[in-house]
Structure formats: C-alpha cells, structure tokens
C-alpha cells in the first residue's frame, strides 16, 4: 500500500524539511511537530554538500546538518523512526543522485522500502532514470517527476508517461525559495499538465505564506502546494532559537493548512 495513491483530490499540502537540521536531535522535534499536523505529504531532504538546484536557505540548512557529520544512514534511521507515526501522511525523500549512488542504489531502496512512498532525485533526469525507476517500482516506491516552465509539451508527455504519486511543478523559473509567483503562467502550465497526466499536480518553489497558498488554490487548477524554504527561513529569522522556532512552526503550519 502506498499512501501517495490515496492523496486527496484537492488542497494537498506537502511540507519539505532537511533531515538533521539544525542538529539530529532537534530535527526529530521538528519532524514530530510537522507530523502532528498530519499533512498530506512530508518531504525529507537528505543533506548534500553541493545542492545546486536549491536556493541559499536550503543550502544553509544542508550545511548546518552536515556540520555535525550527519550520515545518510542517520537520516534514513530518522525517517524510519518517524514512519511509525505516519498514518495517512505520505513520506517522500528528496535528494541528489550522488547520495544514493554512494550509499548503493539497491541498499538504499531496500532501506526505504515500506517506509517511504516516493522519492525525488533532483539531478536524475528522465534520460538517466530507467534503471533506478525499475527497481523503485518493484518496491512500490514512486519516482516523483519535476516539471519546469522550460519543459515543453512534447517533453512533458515523455516524462510523465506512466508516472505515479504526484507531479512536482516548479512554479517559478527559479530555484527553491526565490522569484515571484506568476499565477497566470502557473495556471496555463498546470492545465496543460493535467491534459497529459491524471495524477495530482503540486506547485512548489517560492510559496511563502497563507496568502500564496490561497491564491494558488483560487487562481490556478493546481491540486496542492509544496512549502520548503519558507519553513526553514523561520529558524534563521528567530536567530536559531529552537524553542521559539517550534512554536512558530506550529503556528505557520496551522495557517497554511487551509
């Protein structure tokens, strides 16, 4: 059974957080807080030294997590521990290919089997995915596809053939946490994606507030949103005070859970 197959039809909320950030023990508290709200999806970012598709905030979070020598195994253990309380929440890993390769593709998939519902390998393009996709699907883990505004129709068709889980539509031609949202363009592109695939389209990159969430829901035909950088930003805004951060996190998640 894969939680991603039973996502609600509308207003899907996916929350992204870097594993081991800011430290492993505090990271547990953060994920427990997130999980207590039972969002539809939690995305677990595995820290990487060179996260070139992420913005400065997530890069900083990665750096902090890695500064205490966090290992891939520790991140996976954390996810496993949390999965006991996942209920209907879908667990998705977001990572870079070098992390998976170095851990060993088979070993990695074996470790997350029955724990994780989906995986986004940011720098694994369609052209290189076939082998990994096969072993993921054997183990009932969905390979989530990223679609950017630069992806043309023909390419989207190719990419989304037989895809499962949800489509991660990158709302701005930008990296996580940057640029302004152009609802018209988002709507146009989401609509055209919906003609190609039946699975939900989630809009990510650059969603910062309750207002953004409502606008996406009102002005576009997207099925939900992904929030990442905005969640992490609060930690730095609060001068890295973990108790204040946990309170702010609770308040923020309640707000965006519309």
């Amino acid at each position: 059974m894969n939680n991603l197959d039973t996502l609600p039809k509308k207003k899907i909320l996916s929350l992204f957080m870097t594993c081991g950030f800011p430290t492993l023990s505090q990271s547990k508290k953060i994920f427990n807080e997130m999980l207590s709200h039972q969002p539809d999806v939690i995305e677990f970012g595995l820290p990487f030294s060179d996260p070139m598709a992420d913005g400065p905030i997530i890069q900083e979070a990665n750096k902090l997590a890695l500064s205490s020598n966090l290992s891939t195994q520790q991140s996976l253990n954390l996810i496993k521990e949390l999965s006991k309380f996942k209920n209907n929440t879908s667990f998705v890993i977001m990572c870079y290919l070098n992390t998976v390769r170095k851990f060993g593709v088979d070993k990695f998939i074996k470790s997350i089997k029955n724990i994780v519902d989906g995986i986004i390998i940011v720098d694994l393009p369609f052209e290189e995915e076939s082998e990994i996709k096969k072993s993921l699907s054997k183990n009932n883990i969905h390979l989530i596809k990223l679609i950017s505004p630069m992806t043309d129709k023909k390419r989207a068709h190719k990419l989304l053939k037989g895809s499962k889980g949800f489509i991660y539509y990158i709302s701005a031609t930008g990296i996580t946490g940057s640029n302004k949202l152009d609802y018209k363009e988002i709507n146009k592109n989401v609509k055209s994606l919906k003609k190609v695939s039946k699975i939900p389209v989630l809009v990510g990159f650059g969603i910062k507030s309750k207002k953004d969430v409502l606008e996406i829901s009102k002005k576009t035909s997207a099925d939900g949103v992904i929030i990442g950088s905005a969640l992490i930003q609060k930690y730095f805004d609060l001068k890295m005070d973990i108790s204040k951060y946990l309170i702010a996190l609770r308040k923020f998640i309640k707000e965006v859970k519309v």
Partner: protein
Amino acid sequence: MKTYKQPNTVGRFGEFGGMYVSETLMPLLLNLDKSYKKIQKDKKFKKELNDLFKNYVGRPSSLHYAKNLSKYINGPKVYFKRDELNHTGAHKINNCLGQILLAKKMGKTRIIAETGAGQHGVATATVCALFGLPCYIYMGSKDIERQKPNVFRMKLLGATIIPVESGSKSLKDAMNEALRDWIKNVRDTFYIIGSTAGPHPYPKMVRDFQSVIGKEAREQILKVEKKLPDYLIACVGGGSNAMGLFYPFLNDKKVKIIGVEAAGRGAKTEETAATMTSGTPGILHGSYSYVLQDNDGQIKEAHSISAGLDYPGVGPEHSHLKDIKRVKYFGVTDKEALEAFQTCSKLEGIIPALEPSHALAYLIKAFKNKHKNKVLILNMCGRGDKDLFTAAKAIGFDADE
C-alpha cells in the same frame, strides 16, 4: 585501440559524463547541445572564429624549444606550446570566443561565468567587452583575495564580479552559484563554462574549442622535428588545457600522454586537489567523473596553491582516459610546483603560471637524466603575472617593498 570517438550522443565518455541536472536545466542543455551541433557545420561560424583566433588572440601560439631547461633536465628535448602568449595570458580565451559566438547565434543577451584563478573570468570579461554583452562573474571570496590582479582586470573590462561566500569559497562554489543564476535567468542568459567539466555538452564543446592547441602543436612539431612527439604533458584541474593539447593526438598510439594534477600538501593528505589520484567516481556539477568525496558522497574541499587547479572534480573525459589507460595522471605538490616555477623563470626567461608549473615540476622530477633523444611537448597554458603575489608570499619574498 579503435579510433577514438568520444563522447557518444548523450555525452558519455565511456561510463563518465552525462547530464545530471534538474529539470529546470535539462531543456536548456538539450537546446544548447542542438545549437552547438548545428554551428559545428556552419562554415561562417568557423571562419569568424578562425579570424578572431588569428587577429584577436594572436594564434597560432609558438612552439618554443626550451633549450636551457632541456639541458638542465638532461633528458628529452622539451618544447613549450606557448598558449601563455595568447591575448589575456592563458589558453582560456580560445574557449570563450567559441562560446560567445554561439551565445550570439542563440540570441542570448547576458553572459555569466565562474572563475577560480581568474583567467577564465578575465577571458570571459574580455570577449563580453568585445561583443558588447553584459558580463557577470561568480568568484569565490577566497579566490578574490588571492587573485587580486585578475579581479581588477575583470572590473576594467566592465564585468560585474559576484563574490561567493558559500562552501569553500572557491571554484566549486562559484560554479554552484553560476548554475543557480542560470536556472533563474534561463531565458536570456548564456553560461560560459571555462573547463571540460559540467554537464554535456560542455565537456565536449570546451574540448573542441581548445583543441586548436593540439592541432597547431601537431603541425608545428611535424615541421621542426619531422616526427610526432614521444610525450605530451599538461596540468589538469578541470582539464581544458590538457584536453586541448591531448585530443588531436589521442589516435597517435605512440605518443605517450601525461596529465599532472595538483596534490597540494600531498596526494595522501586531506589538503589536495589530485582528483584522479585521491578521488573516486561520483557526481558533481552535472557530470559523472572522479571527485574528492567522503563515504557518504559529500564533496570535499580541494586544496592547491594554484587557484586554477583548486577543484574537487575533473572533466569526465580525463576520467575515461585514465580508466582506458590512454593517459597517465600524477600528482605534484605545492612545494614542487613552486620550485619549478622558479627554475623555469631563471632558465628560460619565462615566468609560468602556477598551473603549468605543476606540469613543469613533474617533467623535471620524472625525466631528469632519462628519456634522452626523445621529444616532449609541455603545454605552457598560462603566464605567471597573476601569481606573483601568491608566489612571493610562499617563497618568503616581501613583494610590497
């Protein structure tokens, strides 16, 4: 060995290379690949580039018989391929001219680049000035500090320098930031990568533009020596000058080829940039190649006295050439390079950059009293002006006096 024909259509050199980037970049790279393929058949493009090579860069660069150094080594007859005489003082300009002509043809109006030693930054700023395009250079703040003359040069040429404070604050991080800029500004921006690294088609494209070095050297040596060289030697950071010299000789099986990496304080220490001696295959900046990484695949910081070699990755083609044993790679320490830097200056009246000083150091070390009657070409890929302060400090000379 069969005729060398790499990479394949998806940018693989054997198992290395490829395009490991997010979907935000993928359509751009595919488009770039298509445009590059088209332009390769374009005679007008070729003519334009050759004119610039001749009249703007000053090509062909000379092939100088380094008599005094040869005598000192008491080994092979050493020739320098003098790409340090190029306009802007290094080989980097060859590639920048090729890429900016391509950018023009693609209708791009803004240029970005990364730089380590500053040579690629200067070359990019130069071609941007020539073609009247705005230029943004990403440079690690550590490199800005140790390459001040080049920073000033870029500014004079009208470029905007964006200091990079993340990670090790050097070339690797500058490249991360430049890639981010590209993702954000995909529609109008062309990213001029300076080395044979990064995702396809860059490693192939940069090699092709740089291979003018090897093509000229081949003709020149055949003219003076009436035979092919026995050895080629060049320094390797990302690997563009080396690929430029090596590529036109890869099918000449009798020519032995040597790449020299920067081993920093020693290839077995943590402070090294000798990717192929101390690293393992992994993915960095969109390409599968040897990298310096830990057991979890986190990329390590590199160290070298030479900013141009201070990179924890290496071009995928070098990784392939290492694995098929067509090229042998060795490491040279900061200290050895500094000694060679001084030896070459005194003996030949040529102050080399710290990058080719690594190749020189290996040459002096490995060929001393050996391989007599052989002919060798060393790629003198850059001049040492930019390194004067770094070298003076390391040698213990007070350059401010």
